[in-house]
């Protein structure tokens, strides 16, 4: 016999359908989201989609892309923290289209010892890839990445290197995990 708790969770799951979500978000390193989201959903009001957006807007770990049902709290992305000792310089390349972005990411990681930390679909067909490492390595890798993607598709939109990013931007470097943006 199903208990009242089980009955509640099932109805909450049915109230929120994937097609009702604004963006299909899966944090890149989250393993706990699938476990926590039913609890989050069961605590929501019957008007679930509006509350999802409300809770999302309050979520401090949202990137500028926006969207998302639930995310790991700030500072709990252990995969990123484990690599943070590697080098703090940040390199970013923005391309129009996924193909030049992948080409850029491939070239960046082959050119120098850097870590690819984020691939972000920022909307309008633009894709941003980010690497971190020692400043000289990031410098060389971004130049190599820009070279590579310049020859592919619509090519390079912008490249940027920050030698010493401030700690406060770390949450913005995790990426939203958005799979597709219109």
């Amino acid at each position: 016999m199903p208990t009242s708790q089980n009955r509640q969770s099932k109805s909450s799951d049915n109230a929120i359908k994937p097609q009702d979500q604004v963006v299909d978000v899966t944090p890149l390193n989250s393993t706990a989201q699938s476990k926590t989201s039913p609890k989050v959903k069961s605590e929501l009001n019957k008007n679930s989609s509006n509350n999802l957006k409300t809770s999302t807007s309050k979520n401090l770990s949202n990137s500028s892309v926006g969207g998302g049902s639930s995310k790991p709290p700030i500072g709990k992305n252990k995969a990123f923290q484990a690599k943070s000792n590697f080098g703090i310089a940040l390199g970013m390349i923005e391309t129009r289209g996924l193909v030049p972005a992948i080409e850029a990411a491939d070239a960046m990681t082959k050119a120098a010892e850097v870590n690819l930390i984020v691939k972000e679909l920022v909307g309008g067909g633009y894709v941003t890839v980010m690497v971190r490492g020692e400043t000289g390595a990031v410098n060389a890798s971004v130049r190599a990445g820009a070279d590579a993607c310049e020859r592919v598709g619509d090519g390079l939109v912008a490249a940027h290197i920050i030698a010493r990013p401030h700690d406060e931007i770390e949450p913005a470097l995790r990426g939203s995990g958005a799979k597709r943006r219109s």
Partner: protein
Amino acid sequence: MEGWRQKKRPECLEKRFEFQSYEKNRDFLDALGEYCEKVNRFPDISFGKTYANITIRPEENNVKEEISKDDHDFASEIDFLNKQEEN
């Protein structure tokens, strides 16, 4: 030290370099990269196909976090590199 703008909050020196083609831009960035490795000093760089924005921030060991003569000298060297590449 032509064309460099000194900004506050945070303190930095900025300049935009324009190029006629991506190849010339790339040559400048390569030369800048080699020079930065040599002096172990790395500015922030933002570039596209035909431009590069260079931002020089105070060095880490600068307690006051203000632009100093060393930063101006570094900017002059970057200008010199650009002129060399143009020629």
